[in-house]
């Protein structure tokens, strides 16, 4: 679905626009025990609409239908509202909205959810309308009170004025009255040339609490009498509990109970350390009869066997077979193997369950698909969905990890809670080991590439076969397996892309930028190799084939300009280029590398140009490019989850599933292409180009193409 297709219908808008103007109350009593943040914010604020609450203290609270886990929706959505409301940035606040698949649907998904770099894209018009509607209602309320025509009312920086009479007010004084008015059906939106907040570097709303320790994440929720639960999981995918002995675990001071649950053995304790110590003391025999027993190496070998077989066709332009038979061709072939990748967000998965007096349950968690978590938890707990409230909390990262169809994490957490008598609140948490070994990885993939170059030095044919799991669980072609390859941006007359789906018991999942994590690497390294073969400059060569892709060309030219491409590169260094479109956003990157102390690439500098349409907050966009570059670079350099002999998971924590660290982070310069296109996302698109850009620089520096990731394994092999 393209951004342009997304139009909030009047019906949708009204469904999601019970304006909530409200009354501020005295600060709540703050208990010593950190409590979860109730979704929807202060219940005492009377609604202006489903997305906007205004307090008598003039604060404007935006109810974010998207989870804030670092990509900036709190700030972005509040900016959209504030712009049309003519609010002052200092009065803006943001909280997570309640769970509701209709009112708070992601307009691209049709259900409430965050992902696919869609938060700003799908909210751009909807949140502006919410702000414009609230503004219109405040204008009417003020005009009624002051007995003047609405046309004579102005609002600027949060102040409502009537110039002729000299009357002036903040929003709070009219909040309640405005809330009782009927929202306008089609509030008028500003002409973008009149924007005063959109396009400026407004400070982020969530920075302060994340700088002084007061921001509350799920793991921080510590009600009195809390029970902590951890689950012992197997070391093989598909293994189940055959038998266990909990005698030693039960002796641990603070351990309250031990129970078998579908995913393993749960230990319940009065504090976290006791739970962990109790889990360590368990003795469990696992049934491996249905477990995956192949190693990563054996899987790669099995994947390669599929290259020659007929696959699921994604693209077939021209005539690939004839093209490769043409006389006088040079052909280039490459096979590239990508490992499983864990997301490893800083906060491992967790959830808190608290039963209310009426038997209903509040769940606090970093919910990326909150209504799915709600449905799953309700089923496991044997409650009506209306009796389960999912309160979305700030989450310590996700990168896709928390966006799971069927909410398997919530299945486990709710099962652990359901196994208790529910008299005590319960926090279920994963440790880092659970996280790294927990599956739901970016799947392993193998690509086979073939390219043909004719006597004139033109690339005439491109064939690409992609083997791996279907993230979407499809039996037929999964678009996420081939995205970025099937729609190759380069004009090549004969293009064939096909895929093979592989079934494994290792659960797959999207990982920041999904298919582009591997297709971007394969496409951008292979095309670069072809250019090198032809003797073409990597920037000029790309531009020559991007005639039909002006936005790709635009970011590439900008990155080249930033890097002063063509200027001498310091001795011992080389530069590499890549340009990738993902989620409707175009990113070009040029990197400069040398051989680092470990013999692996040392990346000194990244020049990054991004075209994401209207830049709602350039500061957030730059931050996402910087972070995406670091996240992608760390994975390409260091990361793999591997299955050893017999299928045992080999990694367990940050010592062997390395994260990029500050000393490995390059200097990053970001420029944003000025654009009037509707905004597209920035959470993921910074990731795909950095890997291939580094690999391209590496090949040019050392002569060695990167055929297997992570790079550190090749250089240390």
């Amino acid at each position, binding site marked *: 679905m393209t951004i342009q297709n997304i139009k909030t219908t009047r019906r949708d808008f009204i469904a999601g626009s019970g304006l909530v103007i409200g009354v501020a109350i005295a600060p709540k009593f703050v208990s010593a025990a*950190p409590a979860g943040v109730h979704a929807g914010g202060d219940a005492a604020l009377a609604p202006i609409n489903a997305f906007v609450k205004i307090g008598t203290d003039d604060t404007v609270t935006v109810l974010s239908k998207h989870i804030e886990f670092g990509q900036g929706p709190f700030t972005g959505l509040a900016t959209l509202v504030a712009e049309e409301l003519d609010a002052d940035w200092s009065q803006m606040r943001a909280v997570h909205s309640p769970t509701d698949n209709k009112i708070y649907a992601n307009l691209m998904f049709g259900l409430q959810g965050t992902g696919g770099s869609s938060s700003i894209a799908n909210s751009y018009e909807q949140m502006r309308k919410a702000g414009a509607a609230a503004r219109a209602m405040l204008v009417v309320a003020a005009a009624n009170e002051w007995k003047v025509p609405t046309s004579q009312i102005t609002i600027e920086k949060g102040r409502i004025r009537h110039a002729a009479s000299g009357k002036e007010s903040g929003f709070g004084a009219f909040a309640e009255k405005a809330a009782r008015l009927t929202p306008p059906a089609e509030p008028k939106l500003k002409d973008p040339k009149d924007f005063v907040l959109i396009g400026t570097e407004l400070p982020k709303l969530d920075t302060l609490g994340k700088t002084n320790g007061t921001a509350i994440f799920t793991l921080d929720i510590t009600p009195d009498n809390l029970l902590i639960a951890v689950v012992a999981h197997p070391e093989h995918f598909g293994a189940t509990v055959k038998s266990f002995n909990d005698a030693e675990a039960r002796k641990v001071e603070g351990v309250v109970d031990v129970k078998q649950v579908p995913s393993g053995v749960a230990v319940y304790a009065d504090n976290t350390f006791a739970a962990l110590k109790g889990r360590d003391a368990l003795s469990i025999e696992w049934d491996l009869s249905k477990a995956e027993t192949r190693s990563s190496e054996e899987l790669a070998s099995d994947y390669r066997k599929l290259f020659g077989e007929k696959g699921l066709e994604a693209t077939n332009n021209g005539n690939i077979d004839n093209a490769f038979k043409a006389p006088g061709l040079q052909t280039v072939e490459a096979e590239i193997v990508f490992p499983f990748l864990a997301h490893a967000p*800083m906060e491992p998965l967790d959830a808190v369950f608290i039963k209310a007096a009426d038997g209903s349950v509040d769940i606090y968690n970093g919910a990326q698909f909150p209504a799915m978590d709600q449905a799953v938890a309700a089923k496991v707990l044997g409650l009506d969905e209306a009796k389960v409230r999912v309160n979305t909390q700030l989450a310590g990262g996700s990168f896709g990890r928390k966006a799971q169809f069927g909410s398997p994490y919530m299945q486990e957490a709710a099962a652990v809670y359901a196994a208790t008598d529910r008299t005590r609140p319960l926090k279920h948490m994963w440790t880092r080991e659970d996280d790294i070994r927990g599956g739901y990885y970016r799947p392993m993939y193998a690509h086979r590439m073939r390219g043909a170059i004719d006597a004139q030095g033109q690339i005439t044919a491109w064939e690409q076969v992609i083997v791996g799991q279907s993230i979407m669980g499809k039996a037929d072609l999964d678009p996420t397996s081939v995205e970025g390859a099937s729609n190759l941006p380069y004009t090549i007359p004969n293009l064939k892309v096909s895929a093979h789906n592989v079934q494994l018991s290792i659960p797959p999942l999207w990982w920041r930028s999904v298919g582009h994590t591997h297709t971007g690497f394969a496409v951008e390294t292979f095309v670069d190799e072809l250019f090198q073969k032809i003797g073409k400059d990597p920037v000029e060569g790309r531009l020559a084939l991007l005639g039909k892709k002006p936005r790709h060309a635009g970011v590439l030219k900008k990155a080249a300009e930033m890097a002063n491409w063509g200027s001498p590169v310091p001795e011992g260094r080389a530069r590499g280029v890549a340009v990738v479109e993902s989620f409707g956003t175009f990113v070009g990157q040029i990197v400069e590398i040398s051989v680092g102390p470990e013999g692996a690439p040392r990346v000194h500098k990244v020049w990054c140009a991004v075209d994401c349409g209207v830049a709602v907050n350039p500061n957030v966009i730059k931050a996402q490019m910087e972070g995406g570059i670091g*996240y992608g670079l760390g994975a390409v350099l260091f990361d793999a989850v591997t299955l050893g002999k017999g299928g045992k998971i080999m990694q367990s924590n940050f010592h062997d599933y390395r994260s990029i660290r500050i000393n490995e982070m390059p200097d990053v310069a970001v420029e944003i292409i000025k654009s009037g296109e509707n905004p597209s996302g920035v959470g993921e698109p910074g990731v795909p180009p950095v890997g291939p850009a580094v690999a391209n620089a590496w090949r040019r520096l050392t002569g060695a193409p990167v055929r297997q990731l992570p790079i550190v394994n090749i250089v240390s092999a």
Partner: protein
Amino acid sequence: MVTFTLNGQERTFDGDPDTPLLWVIRDFEKLTGTKYGCGVAQCGACTVHLDGMPRRSCVTPVAMIEGSEVVTIEGISGTEADAVKTAWTGLDVPQCGYCQSGQIMSAVALLQMVPKPTDADIDGAMAGNICRCATYHRIRAAIHNAASSMEG
């Protein structure tokens, strides 16, 4: 029974002496700014100051801190802490924010020891703190900004 000071207040703990300081601070003292990230001193999210030095609280048994002074993100104060927090908000360093308490505790300790750190000093002091959002670029800039602000 272990007695120590936490953010200037005397506290006692009479549970399992093996309990890591991290869980004493979080579960028993209910100060949750200090985070769990790995449990094995690999990520630095649990960094506190123990007698003025940065310490990974996840691998510090509470039995080891008898008589010590513990300072967490909630209690950190002084010239360096103010400069670091101001620089952090000025550059909007945090993304998800989960690791940032640990980053700030390490950065404050660095500036207390080296008021004008070089990039190499920053690498040395901060390489133990993982940020999966990779806010490193801004962390480095914020530390330099904090150092500059303390000069003036």
